[in-house]
């Protein structure tokens, strides 16, 4: 049976939707930029996802499944999936028999959720389910996905401490108050490692916990976690098989005794007037600073990435904490620390190593030219996004360099230089490239459109057909979440992380053979079945 049902007449429409969709899925963020407010960004992405659904219901999931899709885009797609049933909407690409009968939709949805968790982190996943609550979504599919994820989490104890309130909020929404209360009552029957259940209770455990378990955890462990999350537990409920809960209860008496509990949890405990250490260690500003310093110095839960991001704050607190820069995998943290403080040899080395690790395998091009726009507008807008666009541009340029065998990089900085001049520097001596990349937000210092005019003239004079890509770390809401382009002759790509570059170039190549691309995607899903 044919897995694809897309007709030749529908293909152009689907191809265009895919190309536009890839630009959005790999570049769209919810945060504010130099030019756009957060609300506008969110609205633009929501609208873009809706447009994809209108073309064909598989499109959003297919795109969210790709490596390089942003967390925000994936969240939006999953949320939309959970809103409706798997039956609704029109399938114009995949054969409905495959989609429904062979479980394609569920396989793909699970894979998208994995993509969100692995490549963006648990905070994105929890935020997704908080949005589920906001949107008042509560169906069997939503419950199955969340409980399966949470109850089989390899680090459930730690996660339940760090994100206790969020998890409590989501569980309350998905179970309902009555079921939660019944489960907590059942949990009171736990005696050591045994649980005595009557018929009704056994049924409740089976339908609310057991059916979601597929790993090492059992229902007794889950009930104990629920007791903790809903603040119904006592210290004596937990033995050595719950070492972190033991530390948590110890921290309620002495926060300095719990080095494996997240810093923010410890500070949350001591900031309560009921905590026995409050008066001596938290009530005055000076005490608070000393306490924060002491906790930070001894805490073992901080990852290298977190420690890197804490550099500025640590300096303010006078905390001397060694950061294992080599272990940092968050390039934005490295760049931000560099911009805010200075680029030490260690940071530069870590960036180089990280770029090497992230290099794109089987990169389409061997010799490339790269222009990096380092103008003022690339520094970003609000405090939280400050320096993010230029960090993305700089790092992407490094990843591109490492991915190609030969490259020339030109940086365009300050008010007196412009991208047009940098472009001419790049083609100096009639240098030939397989592709040219311009990393820019699309806003020119000189007059608007100048770079496009220079590129047009160059192409006209030389007949050169070298593909030129504009990679933009900004997704402007006024462009409906698409990139603001420097010229019509340039292919635009929105980037939030370098991994998405190859994906988006695929989109550009996809123009040539859309059907083949779709077939490959469907084959991959079928292999997971």
């Amino acid at each position, binding site marked *: 049976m044919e897995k694809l049902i897309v007709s030749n007449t529908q293909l152009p429409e689907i191809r265009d939707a895919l190309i536009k969709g890839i630009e959005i899925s790999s570049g769209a963020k919810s945060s504010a930029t130099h030019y756009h407010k957060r609300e506008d960004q969110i609205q633009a992405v929501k609208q873009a996802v809706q447009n994809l659904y209108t073309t064909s219901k598989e499109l959003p999931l297919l795109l969210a499944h790709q490596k390089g899709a942003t967390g925000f885009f994936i969240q939006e797609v999953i949320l939309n999936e959970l809103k409706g049933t798997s039956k609704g909407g029109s399938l114009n690409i995949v054969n409905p028999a495959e989609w429904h009968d062979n479980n394609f939709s569920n396989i793909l949805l699970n894979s998208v959720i994995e993509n969100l968790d692995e490549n963006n982190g648990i905070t994105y996943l929890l935020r997704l389910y908080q949005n589920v609550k906001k949107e008042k979504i509560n169906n069997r599919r939503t419950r199955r996905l969340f409980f399966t994820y949470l109850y089989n989490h390899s680090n459930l104890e730690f996660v339940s401490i760090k994100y206790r309130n969020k998890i409590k909020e989501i569980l309350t929404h998905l179970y309902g108050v009555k079921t939660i209360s019944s489960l907590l009552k059942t949990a009171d029957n736990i005696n050591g490692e045994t649980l005595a259940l009557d018929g009704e209770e056994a049924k409740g455990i089976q339908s609310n916990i057991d059916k979601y378990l597929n790993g090492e955890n059992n229902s007794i462990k889950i009930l104990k976690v629920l007791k903790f999350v809903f603040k119904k537990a006592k210290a004596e409920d937990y033995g050595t098989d719950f070492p972190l809960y033991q530390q948590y209860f110890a921290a309620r008496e002495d926060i300095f005794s719990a080095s494996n509990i997240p810093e923010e949890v410890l500070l949350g405990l001591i900031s309560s007037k009921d905590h026995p250490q409050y008066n001596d260690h938290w009530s005055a500003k000076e005490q608070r600073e000393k306490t924060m310093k002491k906790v930070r110095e001894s805490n073992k839960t901080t990852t290298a990435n977190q420690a890197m991001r804490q550099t500025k704050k640590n300096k303010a607190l006078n905390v001397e904490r060694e950061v294992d820069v080599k272990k940092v995998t968050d390039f934005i943290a490295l760049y931000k620390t560099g911009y805010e403080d200075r680029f030490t040899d260690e940071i530069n080395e870590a960036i180089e190593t990280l770029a090497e690790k992230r290099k794109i395998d089987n990169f389409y091009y061997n010799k490339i030219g790269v222009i990096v726009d380092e103008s003022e507008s690339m520094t970003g807008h609000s405090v939280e996004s400050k320096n993010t666009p230029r960090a993305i541009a700089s790092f992407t340029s490094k990843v591109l360099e490492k991915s190609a065998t030969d490259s020339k990089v030109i940086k365009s900085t300050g008010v007196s230089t412009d991208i047009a001049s940098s472009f001419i520097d790049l*083609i100096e001596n009639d240098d030939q490239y397989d592709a040219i990349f311009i990393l820019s937000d699309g806003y020119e210092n000189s007059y*608007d459109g100048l770079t496009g005019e*220079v590129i047009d003239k160059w192409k006209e004079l030389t007949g050169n057909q070298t593909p030129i890509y504009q990679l933009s770390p900004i997704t402007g809401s006024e462009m409906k979440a698409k990139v603001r382009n420097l010229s019509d002759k340039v292919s635009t790509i929105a980037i939030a992380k370098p991994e998405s570059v190859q994906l988006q170039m695929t989109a550009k190549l996809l123009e040539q053979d859309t059907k083949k691309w779709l077939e490959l995607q469907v084959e991959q899903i079928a292999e997971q079945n």
Partner: protein
Amino acid sequence: MTKIDVQELLKGMRPLKDESGNIIVQSINNMQIVCLTTDDEYNIDKFANPLSVSVDTRRGYGHLTVHNEENKPAITLPQAAYLTKQRVQDHAMTKAGYVPSSNARDFDDSCCVESSQAGQISKNDSTLKRTILPYYLKETALSVVGKDDMGKLWNSIGSFNSSISAGTRQHIADYYDKHDKKLEQFIAHFEKPKRCIGTIVLVDGEIVAIDKFPSFTYADQVWDTLIRDCYGSIAITQEIKNVDKDKKFTQFADQNKKKTGESTSDYLRKILGKTKKSIEGDVRERIEDIFEVEFTKKLDNSKDGYKSEVIESEGYIGQVISESGYNHLVSIVKRSAFDAKRLRKASEMKKKARSQDRFSL
């Protein structure tokens, strides 16, 4: 009344130039900006952030009281507008004003900029937005300095709003609300250079505004507001008029064909150089033209050693705030009815006259 010219008003300042000595010109459509800079000794960094002041209109409509709670004196933005989300009447200043440190100052020639709204702004209004009137209202505002009439800008606001498709109400907030996104996009085009102390703005190759602030810090603090809220209105008007973009580079390339044997990069660089030189040359000439303009100074007020004067010429109107002859703030706009080409002709004749030898036998 005394006379003064631009060279005297902008003493100690100079346009920002690149390494080759060319004036740096930033452009969007038919609008250009040249930044001014100066030496450290003329960077007078002793004033509070003008966007930190609070205001009230408790003394009555058209009567703004500006509160400066900083321990340094403040000079408010020229034609500062104070908008609030409360159901009270938004107000604006007709000029810039000096306010001593930790003190308040009354400005009785202020005006209402929201004609059909009643209510007085209170000092602690947390929703207060401090901005600046759009470029097209600055001339009218300056021409009514000293006039005690709360509604003196209403007609101009109504006409302005309808000219930029922002409705017909005499509410200046309608302009900011309607074009908020476009203005944000507009500001991104311009780089805020380091050591910038002011700007010269040109439209269609003619100077339409000059602003010189007390310090680099002051200019940095007001940059976004000045470019977005004030001069952004020029770009919006051009967009509505559907002004064509000038493809200067392409025009030069069409006029100067590539020579045989010339490398493509050398050729493109040459054309780009010509394009920039032409833009820079035009701007340089226009700045030289305005040197010929002679302003008449009229005292607005003088307190605590600070003097506010309104300056006027046939084609331009503005204000200068000085202390013992040192100009802290200069703000000039072109009168809308004035055809700047006349200035160019007059300038040419004046230059010719100066180059003539004295009569002799």
